[in-house]
């Protein structure tokens, strides 16, 4: 590599020349210098070789499920403001969100899984259900707003769950 002080003046511009980023007057100056300087011509060749090597690499394939993963994250972001590692809380689930979940195959799978989990884990209800007026106000609001029970992670209180099952069975 040339350490000629004249060439040093052009060093940074050799790169910019490759990128087409020189003003016309400066580009003309650089090209004129290159016509008379083999060291700088070699330098440009080496820099161009770097670009060629960089561009020759095969790009990574976009995973087929990336769009679906993004969609899930968008749904999750739209569905609530809970931070990912915050403890679960009983949160109202809006009917619109429930219907979107039901339409998706993931929502249908969750619905089926939730139904199965309920069947397997709930004890037979021994007697009269807790009255609605015995529920804390927050849980009552949850019961009245929910259309489906597929989002198990939202349910923190088993009594509320039992009540909803009873309400669904009563409605069918």
């Amino acid at each position, binding site marked *: 590599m040339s350490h000629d002080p004249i060439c040093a003046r052009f060093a940074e511009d050799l790169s910019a020349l490759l990128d087409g980023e020189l003003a016309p007057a400066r580009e003309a100056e650089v090209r004129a210098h290159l016509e008379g300087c083999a060291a700088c011509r070699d330098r440009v060749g080496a820099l161009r070789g770097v670009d060629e090597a960089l*561009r020759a690499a095969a790009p990574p394939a976009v995973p087929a499920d990336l769009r679906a993963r993004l969609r899930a994250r968008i749904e999750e972001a739209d569905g609530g403001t809970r931070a990912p590692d915050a403890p679960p809380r009983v949160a109202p689930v809006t009917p619109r969100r429930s219907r979107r979940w039901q339409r998706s195959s993931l929502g249908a799978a969750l619905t089926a899984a939730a139904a199965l989990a309920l069947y397997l884990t709930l004890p037979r209800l021994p007697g009269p259900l807790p009255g609605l007026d015995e529920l804390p106000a927050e849980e009552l609001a949850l019961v009245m707003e929910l259309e489906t029970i597929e989002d198990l992670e939202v349910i923190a209180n088993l009594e509320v769950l039992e009540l909803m099952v009873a309400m669904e069975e009563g409605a069918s």
Partner: protein
Amino acid sequence: MDEPDEDVRLMLAFSAGDVHAFDRLFERWSAPLLRYLERLLRDAASAEELVQEVFLRVHRARDRYRPDARFSTWLYRIGTNLALNELRRPRLRAVHESADDPERPELAGAVPDPDEVVDARRRGLAVERELRALPERQRAALLLSAVEGLSYAEVAGALEVSEQAVKALVHRARSTLAERMAAGGGAPPETAGEREKPT
């Protein structure tokens, strides 16, 4: 240049409620963004996560989007900021000092003769290794300029630095790679000093 920005048009359509426009933007930009972020982060899994994060932010921004720059500049800015933040976390430095991926890179284009294949592969591995060793901003500037084809002005917008800084970053990055590849045995081929006029 006065070319209409198709991506701005799509983003504005998305802001107006056209969800398919968002899908089109993902189709157009997920691959270049992944290509850029994978080499910037030096990790494929993190790059995939960050591509999602970028588009999540694009999605969130639909109500307040104002086209004051090219859409791609904005996209690369979001991605670069997220990546540089990620790179500053200590665990990534420890995990990703690793060596070449023997699966990459591969040649694009016509079938060359065997000696050329070996030379090119050696150069390809060398450039990836040396690229990983560059300071982050130099790596980002060079990738955006030389691979993604952004102008210095656009790179400046993506990196949030001046154009003069971009020129210096690109120059240093390329020079370092050229010197290290020459020193490391992956010497670039002899080429004429100037061929085509750069566009």
